[in-house]
């Protein structure tokens, strides 16, 4: 760490980790990633089982990679070639688990002070005071974790980790189970805390909403590998692999063959493999005759009960409703157009259109709602 103008500029976390886990009942799991986490929040996103938590465990020192190198700036914490492996207690990497792991026999204040044993009493009290205020839990100091509500427990877990002034913060879905508003408030406090410190924060999640809410930088992982990284829009709007596409909320994944490229129009035509549909999708890195996959969100598809005309949308496909299913605040319709599409609409719309099984409908797809996915 170097100090510039009174501010502590923590260095980026770099981690390359290789790890093979032989599981008794399933196929072996191979983790092989190399990531760089600059100061600020970076999201590690991917479906469950992608290896996200294992990456955090390796960085924190709770799991040992077979090979690789983990460093915060110049400080090397693990290097298989040099034979370096710092124990977790010497890494100064804070880690908030999904279960939070607050010590149940200690008060909130004792939990927060746990990592400050080396400090003289007065300094310790001052640091605890400061962080309890920063996360707005100073009133709960005397309570035990079991007597504290959900969102406040998350705040105390964050305070406990950050009071030690770590050089990296790892968060493993710490806000799961909170409503969006509570989540946003906690994230705001976390951001505010990190303005002065600028440490790298690696935030693991498998839900899209959290990516949208937090998003600065996203690293998308699947099956032990990084599949893409960048701004949330780039990573999630153009998913490159099927599993990730599903995790990112693309209900429709259709196989097809590129018919031709129309560079002048910025589109290409794709013949879907099932049924007899042709759709236009944005121009991508593909050649005529190549097999591709097209991902479309169920919520991006318009549904009409008569053939629409005079539309800007280029893709209009005729089909029949196979089933309608109420799912909370939306209706999920399966539409057979030779190939099957899943369409989400509101219960009101379904009622107004008098949709029923067997109804004849037209699906309208905007070209830019059709995302090309690499196999």
């Amino acid at each position, binding site marked *: 760490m170097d100090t510039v103008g009174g501010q502590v500029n923590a260095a980026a976390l770099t981690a390359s980790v290789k790890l093979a886990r032989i599981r008794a009942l399933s196929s072996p799991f191979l983790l092989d990633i190399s990531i760089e986490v600059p100061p600020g929040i970076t999201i590690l996103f991917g479906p469950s089982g992608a290896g996200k938590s294992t990456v955090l465990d390796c960085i*924190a*020192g*709770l799991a040992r990679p077979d090979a690789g190198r983990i460093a915060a700036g110049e400080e090397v914490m693990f290097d298989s070639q040099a034979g370096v492996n710092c*124990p*977790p*207690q*010497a*890494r*100064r*990497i*804070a*880690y908030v*688990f999904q*279960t939070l*792991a*607050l*010590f*149940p*026999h200690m008060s909130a204040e004792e939990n927060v002070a*746990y*990592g400050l*044993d080396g400090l003289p009493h007065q300094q310790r009290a001052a640091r605890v005071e400061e962080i309890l205020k920063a996360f707005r839990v100073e009133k709960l100091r005397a309570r*035990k974790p*079991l007597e504290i509500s959900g969102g406040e427990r998350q705040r105390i877990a964050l305070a*406990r*980790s950050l009071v*030690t002034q770590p050089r990296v913060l790892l968060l493993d879905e710490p806000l799961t189970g909170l409503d969006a508003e509570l989540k946003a408030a906690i994230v705001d406090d976390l951001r505010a805390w990190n303005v002065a410190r600028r440490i790298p924060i690696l935030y693991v999640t498998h839900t899209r909403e959290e990516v949208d809410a937090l998003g600065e930088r996203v690293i998308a992982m699947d099956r032990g590998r990084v599949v893409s990284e960048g701004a949330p829009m780039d990573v999630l709007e153009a998913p490159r692999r099927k599993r990730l596409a599903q995790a990112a909320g693309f209900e429709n994944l259709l196989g097809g063959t590129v018919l031709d490229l129309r560079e002048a129009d910025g589109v290409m035509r794709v013949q879907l493999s099932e049924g007899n549909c042709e759709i236009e999708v944005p121009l991508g890195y593909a050649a005529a005759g190549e097999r591709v996959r097209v991902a479309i969100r169920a919520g991006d598809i318009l549904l009409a009960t008569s053939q629409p005309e005079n539309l800007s949308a280029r893709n209009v496909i005729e089909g029949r409703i196979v089933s309608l299913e109420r799912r909370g605040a939306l209706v999920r319709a399966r539409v057979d157009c030779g190939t099957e599409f899943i369409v989400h609409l509101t219960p009101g719309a379904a009622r107004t259109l008098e949709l029923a099984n067997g109804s004849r409908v037209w699906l309208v797809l905007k070209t830019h709602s059709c995302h090309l996915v690499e196999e």
Partner: protein
Amino acid sequence: MDALLLSLRLALCVSAILLAGGLPLAYWLAYSNWRGKFLLEAVVALPLVLPPTVLGFYVLVAMGPRGPLGKLWQSFFGHGLAFTFEGLVLASVLYSLPFAVQPLIASFESVDRKLLDASAVLGAGRLKTFWRVILPLSIPGVLTALVLSFAHTMGEFGVVLMVGGNLAGVTRTVSIDIYDHVQSLEYAEANRMALVLLAISFAVLSVVYAINRQVGRQIGRRLWTPWAAK
């Protein structure tokens, strides 16, 4: 009353030794990844299944003037180990070992591993994690270990008879005393002694359950007992 005092003194010594030795032993058995661990686990559990006379016999042979333990003791203290209070303590420690160690192992193992990870990433070494996290959360197990080894030592008979014999004030414990009274048809005496033991046992267990209730409420964990194990 000599016999009762002797038994209490013996039980206190044995529980104290078992607590001091049982904590590190149980910690190792709960957390070690050593492949041969099962061997040590079997050794620790042995007194549970071994007839007390068998255990007593081997301990007696080892403590005898020609046994390894007896010789060692002789060279340090100038007298033998068999038929002495010290010999009785040693034999009782071995005999009650599983009653102390198994509740400790069970309660250490039931501490959420994530709490240990959390402690480590907060900068704590193993010793701090043990004193500040594992031990406080294992208080019910520690209490059980103490009570079980205390009660088990109070009531033991076969091992005492083999190793200690029946020397008034030295090795004649309550259970031996009761046995003696019954043998001489002094039922009133035997009954008096037996009632005292019954009362002590009941009082101790009541206190344990009361404490357990209190602790359990605070940390969400309950006493480990062999009769209430999962």
